[in-house]
């Protein structure tokens, strides 16, 4: 673009700006009106957020210090009693009894279940999703069909997939039908040692598809020139993945990992519909415990206190991840 041209552009723009400003003034559109209209447009959302989100968070904090009577819908102040009741005995007391025996302290036991669930599902969901995305990103015939197949489980309600998998993993279920000939039949969903594994298997099944979609979108944004440069340098497939694909997927992986961990800490519906927390508390996750305390036993104060403890945990984790991410940031 020549100097002449760019000058004309700027002139035209500033002329247009002047016209627009004068028109705005003539029509009486001024900052006051912008303020009024702007706030009126966001008003419905502001009201919704205050009533159903911000207000409730403060209210939850308040409830967590109360012994709540659900019949009168009011509480009495009990200070830290709820928190102490939830947290004690501490997990390290009596040789980590709380982590081994649900009757000692169900909160710590449920937290252990949640951690096992998170550690068991998140890496497989992510690496499974990434692997499938990498494979489908190549020249594969029937790519759309494969993509649909992997995405189908994502479309299901947690209740539906839990009920389905409960049948597959039942003592007389389909999976045992497959395992019987090789002598591995087992009451997978009915045994406290394997029930959580069943929930995890179902979650991996339902979680790979969405991660695949995120990674496919991320892969599309990597400039082809980088691969070309790597090819000219004689990089192997693994080296291309290690030095081109993976660093460039940074933002996608970060998002996918954080979201997967946060949502795994909030797992509840599938555990409830699969086995209602049993057998013998083996699938009682932390949020399922909150649900049972608050909505089955009516202990709103205890439930709210548990929810806050989990909130702090999730928040601390997200913050740590964010800081870690900032220190790792790579620029190209």
């Amino acid at each position: 673009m020549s100097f002449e041209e760019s000058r004309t552009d700027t002139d035209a723009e500033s002329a247009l700006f002047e016209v627009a400003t004068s028109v705005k003034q003539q029509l009486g559109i001024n900052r006051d009106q912008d303020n009024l209209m702007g706030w009126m447009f966001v008003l419905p959302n502001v009201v919704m957020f205050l009533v159903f989100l911000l207000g409730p968070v403060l209210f939850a904090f308040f409830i967590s210090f109360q012994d709540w009577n659900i019949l009168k819908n009011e509480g009495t102040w009990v200070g830290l009693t709820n928190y102490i009741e939830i947290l004690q005995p501490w997990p390290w007391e009596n040789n980590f009894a709380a982590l081994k025996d649900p009757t000692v302290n169900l909160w710590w036991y449920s937290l252990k279940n949640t951690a096992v669930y998170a550690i068991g599902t998140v890496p497989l969901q992510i690496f499974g999703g990434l692997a499938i995305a990498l494979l489908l990103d190549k020249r594969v015939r029937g790519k759309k069909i494969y993509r649909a197949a992997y995405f189908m489980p994502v479309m299901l309600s947690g209740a539906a997939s839990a009920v389905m998998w409960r049948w597959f993993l039942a003592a007389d279920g389909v999976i045992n039908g497959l395992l019987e000939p090789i002598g591995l039949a087992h009451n997978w969903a009915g045994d406290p040692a394997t029930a959580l594994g069943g929930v995890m298997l179902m979650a991996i099944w339902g979680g790979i598809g969405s991660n695949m979609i995120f990674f496919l979108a991320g892969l599309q944004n990597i400039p082809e020139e980088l691969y070309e440069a790597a090819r000219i340098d004689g990089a192997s497939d693994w080296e291309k993945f290690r030095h081109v694909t993976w660093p460039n997927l940074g933002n996608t992986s970060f998002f996918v990992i954080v979201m997967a961990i946060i949502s795994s800490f909030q797992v509840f519906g599938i555990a409830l519909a699969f086995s209602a927390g049993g057998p013998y508390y083996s699938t009682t996750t932390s949020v399922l415990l909150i649900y049972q305390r608050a909505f089955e036993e009516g202990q709103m104060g205890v439930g709210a206190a548990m929810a806050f403890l989990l909130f702090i945990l999730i928040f601390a984790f997200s913050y740590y991840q964010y800081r870690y991410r900032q220190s790792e940031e790579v620029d190209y």
Partner: protein
Amino acid sequence: MARSNYEYPGYEASGATYWTKTTLLYAVVSLGALWMTLPFWWTLTTALSQNPTASSVTFIPAELTLGNFVTLWERPDILLVRWFLNTVLFATAVTLFNLAFDSLAGYSLAKVDFWGRDTLFLGFISTMMIPGMVTLIPVYLLLVELNWINTYQGLIAPLAANPFGIFLLRQHFKSLPSALGDAAKIDGCNEFQTFYKVYLPLAKPALATLGIFTFMGAWNNFEWPLIIANSNEMYTLPVALFAVRNQYFAEWGLMMAAALLIVAPVIIAFLAAQNYFIQGMSLSGMKG
């Protein structure tokens, strides 16, 4: 930048290596796909069997019958039509409210220059960090106070706004030229007319994506209706399935028939409009 699949590296290799690699690739992808789809097949074959046993439904069912669906229809406590209509009403209302509120807010945050705008936007975005289970108990108690438990308004209202929708639509409106709005105002449109007549029609693709995504989320939502709907007449399909599970546990044929009735509409809709669903999903990846 999009790049064509033909340019993807890793295919320079020729001869035996190429064929080994390709065969391995297809084997892995197909095995995975089999694992993803087999549960749907098992659900179908179990639903169509009168007395399902492990061996009778694994691959090819021994006998086919619609008996389970007839039983579901005839049991007096199973209100299929009512549950279906509840779910349609719930999901539609939540979607319409979200689209209306979020497009208004998204437009305002993108195109109107008002006091406190950027702070407000930041506030909306940071509410995405609040985990749902913290607000579950207080919102429930609020609805108890309002006498809204077990009502449609109780089901719908708390889900009527969603920060992700605001974010998505704000980004979309921001990408549209401001000159359009200026022209409309010179022609005498007020702020609402500018929004409604000029910008909203241009946001149709984003609205469709958000709409499908929201509808699907509400249709599948299990946790919220579980807490709010506590009579048979008010159940939505996922809660109803949970209730059927508790009532008729171990009648697997019956349960899979019920599961299939919930799953089938979603899967059919997905296969018909695959790209919209997948686009909605990848857009939700932007919220990070």
